C-alpha cells in the first residue's frame, strides 16, 4: 500500500517523496540524501549508481547497489556475454574506500539480431544489481566506479565515465532505489536449486555442429529463449527451440558458429516470460533427437494466402514438368480417341480428373498431418524412397506405355462393367479420376522451385495451413483439367482425329517409356540392381500376358495378379540394404556426407559445398548435369580449394533429414555452402545457376576477395 503510494508520488521527483516519508516518520533517519550518484547522460545512455540503503547500518557487512541504465530510443547495451560482437559493461572500482568486493549481477537478456549477427543485451531501462561487501562492517563506504560500456544503434558509441557515491553511517532505506534494485534482482536468472526449470541434457551434437539443450519445467513455458555461454571464443547462431504439447518440455538446437576445445566453464541460461535460470552444464556427446514441432509456428493469414498462391503457381508449373506431362497427355489422347462425346460428359470427365488430383493431394496432406502429429519428420518426395511405391509406379507407367504403343487395349473387366450398370459413362469417370490421381502422384518428385517454399511453410505450420496449402497446390495442378471442364468447347478446337494421332500416340508412349526408364533407374537406387531386374522382368511378363489376344480370361487374370503380387513382395524382400558402393566412384571429387566434418573443416578455414540429392529427384539430376558437372563449377569444386560433399537421400536417412530440417527445408534439391565467411551456411536456390554457385563459394570462402 505504502509502496504503491510512493510509486505514484515519486513521479513528481524525489523531494515530495522524501517529504512524504519524513512526515510519516517512517524509515527516515538523519541521512535525508537520496542514495544515488550523479548521473552520466547523453543521447545513448543515462547512467547512475544507486543504493538501496541511504547509509551503512551498524554491523552491516554488505550493501545492495545497482547500476541504473536507461538506454535512449533505438540504443542497445550488452549482456555479460554480448554475442558474436559487442562488449559487456565493466566497472572498475579502483579508488573506492571500504569496499571489499563488488559482484555485478546480470538480469535476463534479450536477443537482438542485426545484419545476421546475434547479440544479447538490454534496451530501455535496466538496473544491473551489485552485491557489495564491506571491508569494515558498519563503516562508511565511498564508491568510485569507473564504468565502461558500449552502446550501439546505427552507430556504436563507447562510453567511459566515472560515478561516485558516498554512503555514510545510517539506517535509512531509499524505497525507490530499493524497489528498482529488487525488481531487476528478480530478473537475474535463478540458480538451479531455486528454479522450477531443470536443464536435463546438454549435448554437443558433433554431427550437426550444434548444441542440444533439453529442459523441463513444472509450469508451462511462455516466450522462451536459450543462451549458452562458453567464453568469448565460442559463438552460436540462432537457436531452434521446440516445446511439447503442454509446453513443459523444451528441446533446443543452437548452431555453433565458432568452436574451440579450450572453452571456458560452460553454462546455459534459459529465459522465459517472467523467470530465468542459469545453470553450469556438463556436456555429453549423445544428442537426443528433436521430439517436437517448432515452438512458435505463428503464421499470419496474409502469409498463408501468399504461400497458398505460391503453391498454386507451383502446382500449375508442375504440369509441364517431365514427370507429369505424360499424364496430361494420357488424358488428352483419351479425349482425342472418343469423339462425339456430349459436352456434359467431357466436362464431367475433366472434373473427375481434377478431383483425382485433389484427392491425392488431400490424402497426402492428411498423412502429413498425421505424421506431424506423431512427431515424425517428413519430407517431400520421400515416398520415392519406398521400393514398393516405386515398383508400383514403374509397373503402372510401363503398362500405360505398352498400351499407347498398341500392345493391348485396357478394358475394365466385364464384371465390373456390368456392376457399373448400363451407364458406360461411369466407368469412364473412374478412369478419369485415376488419371488425375496418377498425375498428382507423379508430380511429387518434381519439387519445382515454388513448391519447396510452400511445402516447407506447410510442414512448419498448423494442420489448417497444411490443408490450405496442399489444396492450393492441387488446384494448381488440376487447373488444365478445370479449364477444359469450364469450357468443354475447347476440346472441339482440338484437331480432328486422323493419321497424325498415331504419331501423337507414339510420341506420348515415348514420353511414358522415358518416365518408366527413369523410375527403373530410381528403383535401382532404392532397391538395388537385382530387384530392379526382377521387377522389370515381371512387368514384361505382365505386358505380354495382357497383349496375347487369345489367352484364356482366367489364366490371364491369374498371371497378371501374380506379376503384381510378386513384384510388390519382390521389391520389399529383394531390395539390397547396402548402398555405399553404388554411385560414388573412388576417383570422384565428391566426398561422403558427414555433418560433423563440415563444422570442423569450416573452423579450419575451408569451404564446403554440400549437395543433397537423390536418384528420384529430377531437378537434382538437372542441377548436376547442367551446373555441378560442368565447368566452371566443376573446375572450382575439383580445384582443391573447396570440399564437395554429396548427401544421397535416395534412401531414408535420418542424418540427412535432420540436416535439411535444420535449414527449414523438407524437400530436395538442397545445396548449401559453408566457409569462413559464412559458418552458418549460404543456402542456394533449388534450381542452380553457375553464377549463384560461384558467388556463394566466393562469399563463403572470402578467398576471392583477397585476390582482388
Amino acid at each position, binding site marked *: 500500500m505504502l509502496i504503491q503510494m510512493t510509486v505514484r508520488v515519486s513521479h513528481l521527483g524525489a523531494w515530495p517523496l522524501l517529504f512524504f516519508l519524513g512526515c510519516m516518520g517512517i524509515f527516515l533517519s538523519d541521512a535525508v540524501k537520496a542514495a544515488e550518484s550523479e548521473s552520466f547522460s*547523453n*543521447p*545513448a545512455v543515462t547512467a547512475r549508481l544507486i543504493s538501496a540503503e541511504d547509509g551503512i547500518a551498524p554491523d552491516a557487512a554488505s550493501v545492495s547497489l545497482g547500476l541504473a541504465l536507461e538506454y535512449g530510443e*533505438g540504443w542497445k547495451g550488452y549482456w555479460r556475454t554480448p554475442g*558474436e*560482437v*559487442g*562488449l559487456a559493461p565493466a566497472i572498475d572500482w579502483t579508488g573506492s574506500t571500504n569496499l571489499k568486493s563488488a559482484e555485478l549481477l546480470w538480469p535476463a537478456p534479450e536477443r537482438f539480431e*542485426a*545484419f*545476421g*549477427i546475434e*547479440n544479447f543485451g538490454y534496451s530501455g531501462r535496466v538496473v544491473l544489481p551489485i552485491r557489495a561487501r564491506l571491508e569494515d562492517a558498519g563503516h562508511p563506504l565511498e564508491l568510485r566506479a569507473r564504468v*565502461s560500456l*558500449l552502446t*550501439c*544503434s*546505427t*552507430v*556504436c*558509441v*563507447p*562510453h*567511459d565515465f566515472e560515478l561516485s557515491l558516498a554512503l555514510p553511517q545510517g539506517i535509512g532505506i531509499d524505497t525507490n532505489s530499493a524497489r528498482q534494485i529488487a525488481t531487476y534482482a528478480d530478473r537475474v536468472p535463478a540458480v538451479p536449486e531455486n528454479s522450477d526449470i531443470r536443464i536435463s541434457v546438454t549435448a554437443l551434437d558433433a554431427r550437426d555442429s550444434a548444441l542440444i539443450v533439453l529442459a523441463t519445467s513444472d509450469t508451462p513455458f511462455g516466450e522462451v529463449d536459450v543462451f549458452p555461454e562458453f567464453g*568469448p*571464443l*565460442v*559463438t552460436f*547462431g540462432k537457436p531452434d527451440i521446440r516445446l511439447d504439447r503442454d509446453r513443459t518440455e523444451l528441446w533446443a538446437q543452437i548452431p555453433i*558458429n*565458432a568452436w574451440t576445445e579450450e572453452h571456458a566453464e560452460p553454462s546455459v541460461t534459459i529465459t522465459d516470460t517472467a523467470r530465468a535460470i542459469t545453470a553450469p552444464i556438463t556436456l555429453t556427446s549423445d544428442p537426443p533427437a528433436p521430439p517436437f514441432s517448432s515452438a512458435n509456428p505463428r503464421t499470419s493469414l496474409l502469409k498463408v494466402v501468399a504461400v497458398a498462391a505460391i503453391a498454386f503457381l507451383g502446382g500449375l508449373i508442375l504440369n509441364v514438368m517431365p514427370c507429369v506431362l505424360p499424364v496430361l497427355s494420357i488424358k488428352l489422347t483419351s479425349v482425342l480417341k472418343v469423339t462425339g462425346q456430349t459436352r456434359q460428359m467431357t466436362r464431367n470427365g475433366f472434373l473427375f480428373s481434377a478431383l483425382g488430383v485433389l484427392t491425392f493431394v488431400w490424402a497426402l496432406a492428411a498423412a502429413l498431418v498425421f505424421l506431424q502429429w506423431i512427431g515424425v519428420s517428413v519430407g517431400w518426395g520421400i515416398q520415392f524412397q519406398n521400393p514398393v511405391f516405386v515398383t508400383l509406379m514403374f509397373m503402372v507407367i510401363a503398362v500405360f506405355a505398352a498400351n499407347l504403343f498398341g500392345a493391348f487395349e485396357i478394358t475394365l473387366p466385364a464384371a465390373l462393367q456390368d456392376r457399373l450398370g448400363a451407364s458406360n459413362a461411369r466407368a469412364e469417370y473412374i478412369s478419369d479420376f485415376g488419371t488425375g490421381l496418377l498425375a498428382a502422384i507423379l508430380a511429387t518428385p518434381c519439387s519445382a522451385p515454388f513448391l519447396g517454399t510452400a511445402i516447407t511453410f506447410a510442414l512448419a505450420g498448423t494442420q489448417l495451413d497444411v490443408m490450405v496449402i496442399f489444396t492450393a497446390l492441387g488446384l494448381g495442378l488440376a487447373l488444365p483439367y478445370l479449364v477444359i471442364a469450364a469450357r468443354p468447347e475447347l476440346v472441339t478446337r482440338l484437331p480432328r482425329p486422323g493419321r497424325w494421332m498415331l504419331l501423337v500416340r507414339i510420341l506420348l508412349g515415348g514420353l511414358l517409356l522415358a518416365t518408366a526408364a527413369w523410375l527403373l533407374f530410381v528403383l535401382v537406387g532404392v532397391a538395388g540392381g537385382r530387384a530392379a531386374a526382377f521387377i522389370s522382368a515381371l512387368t514384361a511378363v505382365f505386358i505380354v500376358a495382357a497383349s496375347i489376344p487369345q489367352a484364356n480370361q482366367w489364366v490371364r487374370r491369374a498371371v497378371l495378379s501374380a506379376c503384381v503380387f510378386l513384384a510388390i513382395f519382390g521389391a520389399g524382400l529383394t531390395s539390397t540394404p547396402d548402398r555405399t558402393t553404388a554411385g560414388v566412384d573412388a576417383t570422384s571429387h565428391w566426398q561422403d556426407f558427414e555433418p560433423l566434418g563440415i563444422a570442423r573443416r569450416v*573452423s*579450419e*578455414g575451408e569451404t564446403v559445398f554440400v549437395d543433397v540429392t537423390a536418384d528420384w529427384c529430377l531437378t537434382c539430376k538437372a542441377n548436376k548435369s547442367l551446373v555441378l558437372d560442368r565447368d566452371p563449377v566443376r573446375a572450382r569444386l575439383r580445384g582443391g580449394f573447396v570440399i564437395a560433399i554429396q548427401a544421397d537421400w535416395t534412401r531414408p536417412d535420418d542424418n540427412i533429414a535432420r540436416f535439411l530440417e535444420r535449414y527449414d527445408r523438407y524437400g530436395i534439391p538442397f545445396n548449401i555452402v559453408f566457409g*569462413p*565467411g*559464412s*559458418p*552458418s551456411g549460404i543456402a542456394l536456390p533449388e534450381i542452380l545457376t553457375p553464377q549463384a554457385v560461384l558467388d556463394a563459394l566466393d562469399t563463403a570462402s*572470402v*578467398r576471392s*576477395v*583477397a*585476390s*582482388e
Partner: protein
Amino acid sequence: MDCKKRSTLLTIGAIIAGYAALRTVPSLLPEKLELQALDRPEGFRKFVAGETSGGFDPFVGLGTADSTEVAAQKAAALTRVSENICSALYGGLSPTPTQVPMASFSDYYCPFCRVQTKRLADMTSEMPDKIAVAWHELPLLGDSSNLAAKAALAAKRQGAYVAFHERLMTTPFQASPEYLARLSDDIGVDSKKLITDMESAEITRELEDSAALARVFAFVGTPALVIGRTVVQGQISDRMVREIIELEREEGWRDVCTAA
C-alpha cells in the same frame, strides 16, 4: 468471353502490381540527402542522418588511462594530422580526376562496421573508376579491439583488408600466433609478415593518425565514413552513399584538400 478474360488478367495484374508496390515503395520513399557545413575542419560538411550523432562528447575510447608519454604521442599525431587532413585521411590513395576518395573507419566489435566494410568493397569493385577507399581502423573497445585492428592493418599491407574483415564476420578474433597463422592461410597472406607488421612502428603510427582524425572530425563512434568532403557518422544506406559520391563528383572535393 474475351472481355471476361481481359478482366481476369487485369485483376491478376493489379494484384501482382499491388504486391510489388507494397514491397518496394517504402524503401524508395524517405531519405533525403541533407548536408550541414562543419565549422571544423573547414570546408567539410556532415551528412545529417536522423538524430543519432548529436549530443555526445567526442570520446577517447575505452580503458585509456593515458600516461604522459602516450598523451604526448597523441598530441603529436593530432598536430601531424591537422597539418594535412587530406593526406592523413586519404593517404596512400592517388585518386584519378574522376575518382572520389573515401575513408572508412571501423572497429572489430561494431556490428555494422563489418557490413559497411563489405558494402564499400563491393561498391569499389562495381565502380572502380568512381571511388577509391582508404581503410582506417578505429579500435575504441579495449585490448582485443586493438589487436584485431593491428591484424587488419597488417593484412591491409598485403592487400587483404576486406578479406580479413569478412573472415572475422561471425567468428571471434583470437590473438594467439596459431590462430593468426591459420587466418593468414585462409585469406592468402604471409603469416610471418602479418605478425611482424602487427607490432611495427608504422602500424602504431597509422592507428595514432586514425585516432587523431577521429578527434579532428569529432567522431562519436564507429562506423564513420568520409566521402570526398562529406562526413558520415554511423550506418548509411548504399543509396545515400551513391548519392553523396555523385554529388562529390559534380561539385569537386579537391578544393578542401588543397586548402587544408
